[in-house]
Every structure is written in structure tokens, then in C-alpha cells.
């Protein structure tokens, strides 16, 4: 058997060329069978398989087609988009015999010398994949040095130089800066820069060098700190930006965009040059280059907006580099961008993939407005006024787009008078003959409502006197072509949102019926195939419902509830659908469940309308269960969200649906692939616990076992884990002493997670955020358990009290602790004292950190935190006094 298998492998190795060619055969049968054999080979002996592929790849006698596929298969054996699969592949490689690996690597390096580009290119990528595994593990240490000799030895063919530079670029893309030593980085950068400047170098080499530089920029931190090196890098990039070759210019501008965001603080001395480079590019160069040139300024805006956000309110002092580049360039930058607005393409609204000069220019203008605020207004308004009435549609559209673009950033005081003066004009422009103009006008109206309209603002843009006109225009224009209608939906969305905070009836109420009915018919439009309009219509309906006023809207909402239930009822009836139709059905279900969710929540928010939900509960639940049943394996996220709201609305009455619903809850909790579904299902468990209290007990074994499995599942998105801990707390509060049997499983999880928190990378902001969430979840779990055990089982927590107290202390001493964690920590201290009473007296006597901790809380501005701290202090004092 063994030898037969061996023969088989040898056979396959000998036939590898044929197999690789057959696997690309146009004849399906041949192809499938070859693919089958390759798979077999791979499974039978991975290292032989990889070696054979690398030999194939390096052999200049073999046909380019088989070599290219060999390269692709090699790459796919080292990397995968699926994170779990990727880990597995890496492990396979790491475990392979070292001498075999070095043979493979040798072949790969050799391949870079091949005259066949179909072989070189995949080889560069495969080298980078191997490097991404080995370099962080401090293996293949001579790779970089080896590649660099290709650049420094005399008489190296330019094809090899190009392949080498590409390889270096791929490697930089794969690994992270800390994986390379500084001298390696220096050598790489030197090679790349030489590749860019070499006088004898041909275009391909130069292009490869610029692209490599793009990937290597991240590694150049310390080189950018050194003025001489920085000057040199900037010089070569700027030279490349005016190369004769379009591709080189484009790649060079990409580098500049990247430098703008990575090294903003050192740009000062270069800005003059960069301004004239980008201005020339925007005005004269071809579109791909011009787009990058605009993107350069957008990136500068991003940086300056971020700086201002971070130091909001504080005097942006000398400690941060804030150069006001945009403000300084404003007088020339704005006219340059306004010119681009006139370069619209016909039908650009119909194609989502279009990105052209006018779109990029307007977007950049919007960013500039956010960066400098009021100062942009006088620079843009003459353009708006001069063009908005012109005969040529491009002028009218550009003027409107310019106006719409600057609505975010400048002060309300500055904008309100202009907007109030121009509103009527814009409303009339919704009758323009050109649909681009109408599209942009509707979008601008939406922006106006979004930024300048709310029920309690001092400069109201929407008034009782102009609302009738606004409404009649919007309700009419929503019947326009799809892309215009979609923007009108957006305008209604933000118009409604402005009344969210209205205390006494909103002036929109009289239009509510009409708005709802027009949105429903928009959602039903059959003249559009695009799903976007339908989804905009339903989402706008949601906002309209959310911002409506009870009681005046009660009857209307009840009616809408029925209508949406009918629509969902018809949807779930559909059968025998093609996969395309099935997808549409599911998309519509999502939207309808979303609307139901919002209606349930709205009606539940007032005592007068709660009964409507209670009466409709049976019908709603039947629909949701049918939605779940439409999908054989997965649970619908939106239906789950809506059920959460329903549970909340009908409380303990939900118990009767549990037997039917439980299996879907179970599926939801197990759905780690779609982590949003899992996360929402966890939330619904919380809702159910609050509603049912100990009636949830019969379902707890199943729920707990799912939750515990989820926690141990490395493939589940980490964001779901903190809520699972909180959910333990919910369950414990609901079932009280019955939680005892889960303690042996839950406590180790809590302690493990507490330890994990200590080991998270504190230089990573996201990780710190995650740590806070995790800690909060852990505290909420402990709080729930303590409270659940209060009456009879408090002593069960005695063995864990000290660990908990030490954990709280660790959290207290953490500088990254956020308010949510602080509050949860204080609550759990109080719970510990309160529930454990006398038995933790000694623990509290032995420790003093809680005094400092509570004192800190007493000085907080957060009243709730103060209250909690007062309460916790009282609980501790009582224990100590007992």
C-alpha cells in the first residue's frame, strides 16, 4: 500500500506539467479530472507537491502556462483569505522539512532570473508569502541580502532588477515594519531609490521601483526623520511625478498621497513644490494622475480634520504639528477644484464604479470646508452665483454641487442666511430639465436638512411657512428617475430626523400620511431594477416612524404596522424561487423586518400605544418564524433584532413563543460565521431574561452551552465576546440560585478573560477599547451572579471574591480605563460588599485601593457614577461597621 502510494506520487510528480496544463483545459471533464488529481497529490504529500510546483515554476524548459498555474497553486498553499484556513496553511509550512523548504526557496529565487514574465511574477509573490511566514519568525534571514545583490552586482539584466524590486515591494506589503532590522530597511530603500533614479534603468525597472517604494514607505519612519534622507526620497518621488511615463507619474502620486497621510508633520518644506506638481497634474495631466493629485489634497484634509478633532477646544499648540496647509493654499486650491466640477460625465449617476475628476474635486471641496470652516464660503459663493442660472447644465450642476459640498464645516450662522435665501431657488431647481441637476439639487436639500435643520435650532431653515412648499416638491420629485428619487428619500430622511427631538407635536405631522404612502409606493416601483431605491425608501420610512409624534401618529402607525405585516406575509409565501429571486426575497425581508422593528419600538415607547403591539404579537411572531424558516441554515439578523424589540414590548407574554422560537435562537447563537447574527442573538437572550425572569430556566442549559462554546470559539469575531459575559449576568439575575450549576464553567471563563485583558497589546488603541469592553462584560457578569445568589447562595462566590477584588484593583490602576468600565467596576465592588456582607469584611479591611477609587468617582462629572459610588461606599461602610 505504502509503496503503491509512493509510486503514485512519483507518477504525479512526473506528470505535473501535464496535470497543470490539463487543469486549464477548455474541456470541462479534462479540467475537473486534472484538478482532482492535483488535489489528491496535495493531500497525499504536501511537501512533495510544493516542491514539484516550485521545480515546475523555475524550469525555463516548461511551458509558461503550466509555470503560471504552478505559481498560483504555490501561493494558494501558503495563504488564504479565510483566517482559519490561513493559520492552518502557515502551520503546514512551518512543520515541513527544513531541507525541502530550502530547496523550494532556492527554486523560487532562481525563478526571478527567468526571462519568462509568467514565471517571474508569480515567483515574486510566492517569495513574499514565504517571507511573510518566515521573516517574523526570524527565519530566511538572508533573503533580503540575497535580493539586494541582484540590485548591486554589475551587469544585472533589467528583467531581474524589475523582478527583484517587485519582490521587495510584495515583501514590504506582507510583513510589518518591526519585522525588519533598520539596516535591512536602509538597504531596501537604497535599492528602491536607486531603481527609481538609475540613468541606465529602463521604464519597467523604474515603475517597479516606484511601486515598491509605495509599499516600503511604512518602513521608512526613521529615514523620514532624517532630513537628508527625507530630502532625497522626496526629490526622487517628485522627479518620478513628472516622468514621461503615465504609469510612473501615477505611481509617484500614489506615493505622495501615502506620504501625505503617513508623514504629514514633515511636509512643510516641500509644500510649495507639491502644490505646483499637483496643480499641474489636476489641470493638465491625464485623469488617473489628476485623480491622485486631488486625492493628495483630500488626504491632507483628512489629516488636518483629524488633528482638529483630537484637539478640539484646546489651543492647538506647538506640541502637535498642525501646519494649516489647506488654509494657506485656500486661495489657489479652491479655484482649481471648482474647475474640476465642470468636468462631469454624462450618466455618471448610473454607474457606481465611476470615479471622475468632478466627483473627486467636489469631494475634496467638501473636505476643505470641514477643514477651514467659514473661510471657504466667500471663495465658493461667487462660483455658485455665477453658474447656477447658466444655460449649460454642467454649469448649473457644478454650481449646485459646489454649494452642497460646503454645507458641512462652516458655522450655522454663516450658512443659515445663505441657505434660507437659496432654498426657494433649489426647490424650483427640482423641476430642472436635466436629471443631473435634479440629482445634485435633491442631494443638496438633504445636506441642508442634515446639517442645518432641527426642531430646536435658533436659525430654522424649515419654517411653518416654507414647509408646504418643501413637502410638495419632495413628494412630487420622489416620482422622478431612480437616482433622483433616491436622493429625495435622503432629503426626507433628514427632514424627518430634524423633528426627532421635537417636544410638542412636529409640524411634519400633517404630512405623515402622505409621506408614508409615497414612500411605500416608491418601495414598490417596478421601473427600477436597482435595489438601492427600495432600500432608501424603507429606511426613510424607518426614520419617519422614529421621529413621528405619539399620540397624533398612533392610528397611522397602527395602520402601517398592518401594511408591513401584509407585505411580509406575501413575501414569505413566495415559493419555488431561483437563487436570484431568493436573494431578492431575503433582501426585502430584511427591510420589512427592519420597519417592523422600528414600529414595535415606537409603539412600545408610549403607554397609549403599547396595546397595539400586544394585540399584534401573535401575528408578528408567526411572520418572524416564517422568515427564519425561509433560510435553511441561517437566521435572519433583522428578524432577530425585531424579535428583541417585541420581547421588550410584550414582556412575560413572550413565554408562549419560546418553544417555537428557541430553535432559531439556538441557531443564531451558533452562527459564529455571521457574527452580527450571533451578537444580536446574544442580545435577545438578554431581552428574554429581563422579560421572563425564571421562566427562562428550561432553556438555560441550551443557551449556556451555546454561549460557553462561543466563548471558546477562536473563529467567532471577538466583538461578540464581551456581550456574552454581560449576558451571563442577565441570565444569573433572571434565574437566581439556579445559576449555581454553571459556576464551575463560568468562573474559569471569567478569570481567563481577566487574564487575557492583562496581556492585550497596550500600544494598540483598538485593543485597549476591546479590553475595556471585555472588562465591562466581566464585571457585569459578576454583578449579575452576585445579585442572583443574594438570597441563598452568596457563599458560593466566597472562593472567588479575592480574585475579583484583585481584578478590580488591576482595572483601577489601568490608565486606559473608560467611564463604562469604571462604573461597572464600582457597581461590582458595591455588589460584592452588599451580597457577601460580613464574609468579605476582612478583604475590604486588607485593601485600600477602593477608597481612592471611590474618591475618584465622587469627583466625576457623571451624576450616575457619583450615585453609584455613593451607594457602593454605603455598602462597604456597612460591611466594615458590622
Amino acid at each position: 500500500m505504502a509503496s503503491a502510494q509512493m509510486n503514485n506520487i512519483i507518477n504525479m510528480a512526473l506528470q505535473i506539467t501535464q496535470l497543470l496544463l490539463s487543469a486549464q483545459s477548455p474541456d470541462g471533464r479534462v479540467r475537473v479530472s486534472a484538478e482532482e488529481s492535483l488535489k489528491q497529490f496535495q493531500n497525499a504529500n504536501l511537501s512533495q507537491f510544493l516542491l514539484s510546483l516550485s521545480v515546475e515554476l523555475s524550469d525555463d524548459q516548461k511551458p509558461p502556462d503550466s509555470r503560471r498555474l504552478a505559481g498560483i497553486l504555490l501561493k494558494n498553499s501558503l495563504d488564504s483569505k479565510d483566517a482559519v484556513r490561513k493559520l492552518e496553511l502557515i502551520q503546514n509550512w512551518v512543520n515541513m522539512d527544513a531541507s525541502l523548504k530550502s530547496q523550494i526557496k532556492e527554486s523560487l529565487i532562481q525563478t526571478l532570473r527567468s526571462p519568462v514574465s509568467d514565471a517571474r511574477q508569480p515567483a515574486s509573490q510566492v517569495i513574499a508569502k514565504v517571507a511573510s511566514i518566515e521573516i517574523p519568525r526570524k527565519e530566511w534571514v538572508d533573503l533580503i541580502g540575497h535580493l539586494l545583490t541582484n540590485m548591486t552586482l554589475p551587469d544585472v539584466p533589467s528583467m531581474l532588477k524589475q523582478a527583484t524590486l517587485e519582490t521587495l515591494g510584495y515583501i514590504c506589503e506582507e510583513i510589518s515594519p518591526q519585522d525588519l532590522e533598520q539596516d535591512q530597511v536602509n538597504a531596501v530603500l537604497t535599492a528602491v531609490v536607486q531603481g527609481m533614479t538609475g540613468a541606465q534603468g529602463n521604464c519597467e525597472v523604474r515603475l517597479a521601483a516606484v511601486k515598491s517604494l509605495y509599499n516600503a514607505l511604512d518602513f521608512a519612519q526613521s529615514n523620514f526623520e532624517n532630513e537628508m534622507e527625507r530630502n532625497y526620497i522626496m526629490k526622487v518621488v517628485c522627479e518620478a511625478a513628472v516622468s514621461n511615463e503615465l504609469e510612473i507619474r501615477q505611481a509617484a502620486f500614489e506615493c505622495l498621497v501615502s506620504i501625505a497621510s503617513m508623514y504629514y508633520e514633515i511636509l512643510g518644506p516641500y509644500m510649495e513644490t507639491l502644490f505646483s506638481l499637483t496643480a499641474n497634474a489636476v489641470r493638465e495631466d491625464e485623469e488617473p494622475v489628476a485623480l491622485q493629485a486631488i486625492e493628495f489634497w483630500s488626504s491632507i484634509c483628512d489629516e488636518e480634520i483629524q488633528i482638529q478633532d483630537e484637539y478640539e477646544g484646546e489651543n492647538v499648540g506647538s506640541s502637535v504639528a498642525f501646519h494649516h496647509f489647506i488654509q494657506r493654499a485656500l486661495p489657489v486650491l479652491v479655484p482649481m477644484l471648482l474647475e474640476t466640477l465642470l468636468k462631469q460625465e454624462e450618466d455618471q449617476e448610473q454607474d457606481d464604479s465611476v470615479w471622475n475628476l468632478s466627483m473627486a474635486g467636489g469631494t475634496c471641496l467638501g473636505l476643505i470646508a470641514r477643514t477651514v470652516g467659514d473661510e471657504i464660503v466667500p471663495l465658493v459663493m461667487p462660483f455658485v452665483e455665477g453658474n447656477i442660472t447658466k444655460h449649460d447644465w454642467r454649469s448649473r450642476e457644478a454650481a449646485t454641487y459646489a454649494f452642497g459640498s460646503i454645507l458641512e464645516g462652516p458655522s450655522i450662522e454663516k450658512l443659515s442666511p445663505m441657505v434660507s435665501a437659496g432654498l426657494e431657488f433649489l426647490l424650483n431647481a427640482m423641476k430642472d430639465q436635466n436629471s443631473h441637476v435634479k440629482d445634485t439639487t435633491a442631494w443638496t436639500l438633504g445636506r441642508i436638512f442634515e446639517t442645518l435643520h432641527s426642531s430646536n435650532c435658533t436659525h430654522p431653515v424649515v419654517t411653518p411657512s416654507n414647509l408646504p412648499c418643501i413637502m410638495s416638491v419632495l413628494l412630487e420629485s420622489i416620482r422622478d428617475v431612480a437616482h433622483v428619487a433616491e436622493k429625495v428619500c435622503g432629503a426626507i430622511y433628514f427632514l424627518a430626523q430634524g423633528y426627532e427631538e421635537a417636544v410638542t407635536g412636529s409640524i411634519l405631522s400633517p404630512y405623515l400620511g402622505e409621506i408614508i404612502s409615497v414612500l411605500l409606493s416608491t418601495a414598490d416601483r417596478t421601473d427600477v431594477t436597482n435595489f438601492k431605491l427600495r432600500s432608501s425608501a424603507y429606511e426613510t420610512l424607518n426614520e419617519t416612524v422614529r421621529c413621528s409624534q405619539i399620540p397624533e401618529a398612533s392610528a397611522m402607525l397602527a395602520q402601517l404596522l398592518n401594511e408591513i405585516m401584509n407585505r411580509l406575509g406575501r413575501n414569505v409565501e413566495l415559493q419555488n424561487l431561483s437563487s436570484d429571486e431568493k436573494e431578492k426575497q431575503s433582501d426585502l425581508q430584511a427591510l420589512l423586518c427592519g420597519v417592523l422593528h422600528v414600529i414595535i419600538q415606537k409603539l412600545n415607547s408610549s403607554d397609549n400605544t403599547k396595546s397595539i403591539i400586544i394585540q399584534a404579537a401573535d401575528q408578528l411572531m408567526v411572520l418572524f418564524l416564517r422568515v427564519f424558516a425561509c433560510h435553511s441554515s441561517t437566521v435572519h439578523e433583522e428578524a432577530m433584532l425585531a424579535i428583541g424589540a417585541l420581547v421588550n414590548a410584550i414582556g412575560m407574554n413572550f413565554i408562549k413563543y419560546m418553544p417555537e422560537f428557541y430553535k432559531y435562537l439556538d441557531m443564531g447563537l451558533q452562527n459564529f460565521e455571521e457574527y452580527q447574527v450571533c451578537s444580536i442573538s446574544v442580545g435577545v437572550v438578554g431581552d428574554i431574561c429581563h422579560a421572563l425572569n425564571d421562566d427562562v430556566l428550561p432553556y438555560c442549559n441550551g443557551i449556556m452551552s451555546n454561549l460557553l462554546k462561543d466563548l471558546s470559539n477562536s473563529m467567532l469575531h471577538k466583538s461578540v465576546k464581551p456581550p456574552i459575559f454581560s449576558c451571563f449576568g442577565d441570565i444569573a439575575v433572571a434565574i437566581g440560585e439556579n445559576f449555581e450549576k454553571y459556576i464551575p464553567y463560568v468562573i474559569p471563563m471569567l478569570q481567563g478573560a481577566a487574564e487575557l485583558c492583562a496581556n492585550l497589546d497596550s500600544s494598540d488603541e483598538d485593543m485597549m477599547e476591546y479590553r475595556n469592553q471585555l472588562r465591562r462584560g466581566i464585571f457585569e457578569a459578576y454583578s449579575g451572579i452576585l445579585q442572583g445568589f443574594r438570597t441563598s447562595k452568596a457563599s458560593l462566590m466566597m472562593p472567588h471574591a479575592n480574585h475579583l477584588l484583585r481584578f478590580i484593583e488591576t482595572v483601577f490602576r489601568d490608565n486606559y480605563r473608560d467611564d463604562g468600565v469604571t462604573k461597572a467596576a464600582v457597581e461590582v465592588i458595591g455588589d460584592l460588599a452588599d451580597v457577601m456582607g460580613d464574609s468579605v469584611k476582612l478583604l475590604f479591611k486588607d485593601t485600600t485601593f477602593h477608597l481612592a477609587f471611590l474618591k475618584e468617582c465622587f469627583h466625576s462629572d457623571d451624576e450616575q457614577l457619583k450615585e453609584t459610588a455613593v451607594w457602593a461606599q454605603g455598602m462597604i461602610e456597612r460591611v466594615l461597621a458590622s
Partner: protein
Amino acid sequence: MRLHELRRPFKRPAISDQQRRREFALLRQAQQRSDSQNLARRLASSVLDLPNPASTVDAQSDLTESGDLDAVLAMEATEEREAISPTARDLDVVQASKLKGSEGRRWFSRQLMLPEWMIDVPPNLGRDWYVFARPAGKRCFVVSSSGSTVSRLRNGSVLHCFPSSLPNGARTKEMSAPSHVYCILDCIFHEPDQTYYVIDMVCWRGYSLYDCTAEFRFFWLNSKLLESGACNSPSAYHRYRFSVVPIYDCNQIGLRSAYTGVVPYIKDGLLFYNRHAHYETGNTPLALVWKDEFCSQYVLDTDSKGQVPAEQQVILELHDGGKLITSDDPPIVVGCLDRDFLQQSGSQIGYLLRFTVKDESVRIADGKLQLGDIKFISRANRARAFADSYSKIFFQYAARHSPLQFQDLIAAMQSNFDEKSGATDVEMAG
């Protein structure tokens, strides 16, 4: 190689309604979690240290001597509980609410915090105290529990039994709350507008505020009472309106506001609360009452007929050996009755007796008041639960002779300020 993503969001309103729905759901769940955990926390506090331990002991000796067997038994029962659970030292208010007749009265008569009368201005009045105008009316203890609301006067007797919007204060469909949800408010019932003015909050939704500072209690009172709907106009399930009183920091402005400010009720003096003080049952020097003719119609005590007598009258409790004591804790002996008189009048220990004070015999030495010669009038009204406190007797005496005037309080504010700046000077010189 990866290329820079050029495309930015274009003319698309940033609607992600699904994300909003998720966020709302998360928010709601977090809110519910904190609500339900807080509820559990408040339940915890329902086993309260209601009266402080000292007063329990006192009450016990009191009762033993008065020979009230039922009460003694009740006390013993309490002690038993105490042995089982150290936190359950006393009856809680839910149990107490079930007590009938005299037991109930006795229990509730000991739950109020009783301000001392202001004889002189406490140090730091301007820094550590609150001041507010006391509404004229009946001081009472309002308890809402098990779907009804009961108000009891200072002596423990029931004033009203009524439905209210306080938590668990009425039996309505929407408001069915578990029995452990209850509230205790310290109120003054103001007859003219039939309103309970809440001057302190003792428990809210089962959450004990006894161990909280006045600062916190007032803060809680102001935020929670309004939310409950108890301040709404009367309705079927809410017979009396509750209201808060404006509470000021006791500085010159606050003091003047409390003194002269317009309030919807008739004023009966000013109350001063030390902001750091916890709610203590019985007399406390950390809450003070002060009155003058301008802000109260009842500066001078009335006699049993409701008239202001020509000479000051006091109510004292008869103690063993004929000693006459005040209601202070510990009591102060201010006089003595001779054996003959005792036998003649048939007075027994624990009786509350009314006397006339002979002005000319009163001495004030070292800031202490000595009553000297007092003349027996009668046994006090049976509704009374307590003798006068020492501070009350002193205040009444002062009110008749050299009252502490509003200007004195204002002047104290001023000197408080001077002291502070003086201290700073010294520090700076050093």
C-alpha cells in the same frame, strides 16, 4: 501590489439605518441590564438599618420600664432576627407597615429625623449647609408600598391612606410592582393646597438613602420624584400632589432667597441641613430649625388651647425618682418633682407633663440654660409622643427674650467668609 483606494463616498447620504437599529437595540439592552441590576441592588438595601442602634437600646429600656409587654415581645423578636442575620437588625418598613395600632404608631414615631432648634449659629454655616423654607403643616412620614400610600404624623398615627403615583403607591394595572419596591419620604402636609411637600427622601424604590449624605439625598429627591409622576396633579390613582421645596446653598444669597423668596406654600421657619449628614432618626444637631415672626406664624409655642401663653410652657417626661427629662438622647434632666406631688397626681414614669417656666428663675450659665423653678399645669395631650427637646426649650426662651435674628445669621455668613480669608492670609504669610 495594493493600490490606494481612491473612491470616496460620493453624494450619498450617510444612512446606515441597519447600524442605527443595531445601536438602538444595544442601547436598550444595556439600559435594561442596568435597570434590572440596580433594582436588585435596591432590594438588597431593603433590609435596612432603619433606626440607629443607639435608639434601639434606648427604646428598649424605655419600653421595659413602661411595661408595654407587646412592645417588649416585639423587641425580643427583633433581637432574635438580629442573631440570625446581622443586617436585619430591625423591622423593615414593609413589615412595619403591617403593624397595627399602637405598635405601628410607636415604630413610626421613631423614624423621623428631628431637627434641633437653632440656639446659636453653627460654625461653617455658610459652607456646609443647605437652607430652605419649611412649609407650614404636619410633618409626616410617607410610605408607599404594596400598592398603597400611607402618611403618618410625627407621633406615628395615620394621617392619610391613599393611592399615589409613588412607586408601588397605588394598585393599578400598569403599576404592579413587586412588594419589595417601596418608598419612604419625609414630608410636610400643607393643608391649604392639600400637598405633600417632600423635605427629605429616606428610601426610593427600596433603595435606602439612610446612609447617604443630605447632598446626595436632595439630589436624588429632585431627580427621582419628578420622574415618578408624583408631582402631577391629583387623579384617580393619585389623590394628593407631592412637591419639592426649593433648597439653597446656605450662603448670603441662598439664605435671603429662602427667607424672603416667594413659595407656593405658607412658610413656617427655615430648615438648615448639614450637607454631609446622613439621615438619622431622632434629634440631630446636623439639621436645625429657626424661626422669626417674618417667616413663621408659629414662633412661640401655643398652649393646649392653641393660644400663646403669657409665660413659656414646656413639656417634660417624668423619669424615675421624679426626674423631669427632655426628649434628647441622652435625656437632659431639667427638674425634679417631689414624692408628694407624684403620689398626689398619680403620675407615672413615662408620662409627659406640661409646666410653666418662671422667667425670673431661668439662668443661662456657660451657654447652658437652667430652668430653675417650674410650675406643673397638667398632663400633656395624649397625642404627643415626645417631651420637648432641650434646644426647643432654649429657643423658645430666647425667642421671648433675645431672639437669634435673621441679621445674626447673615452676619455669621459674613464672618464665615472673613475666617476663610483670614486663614488664607496666615498661610500666605507663612
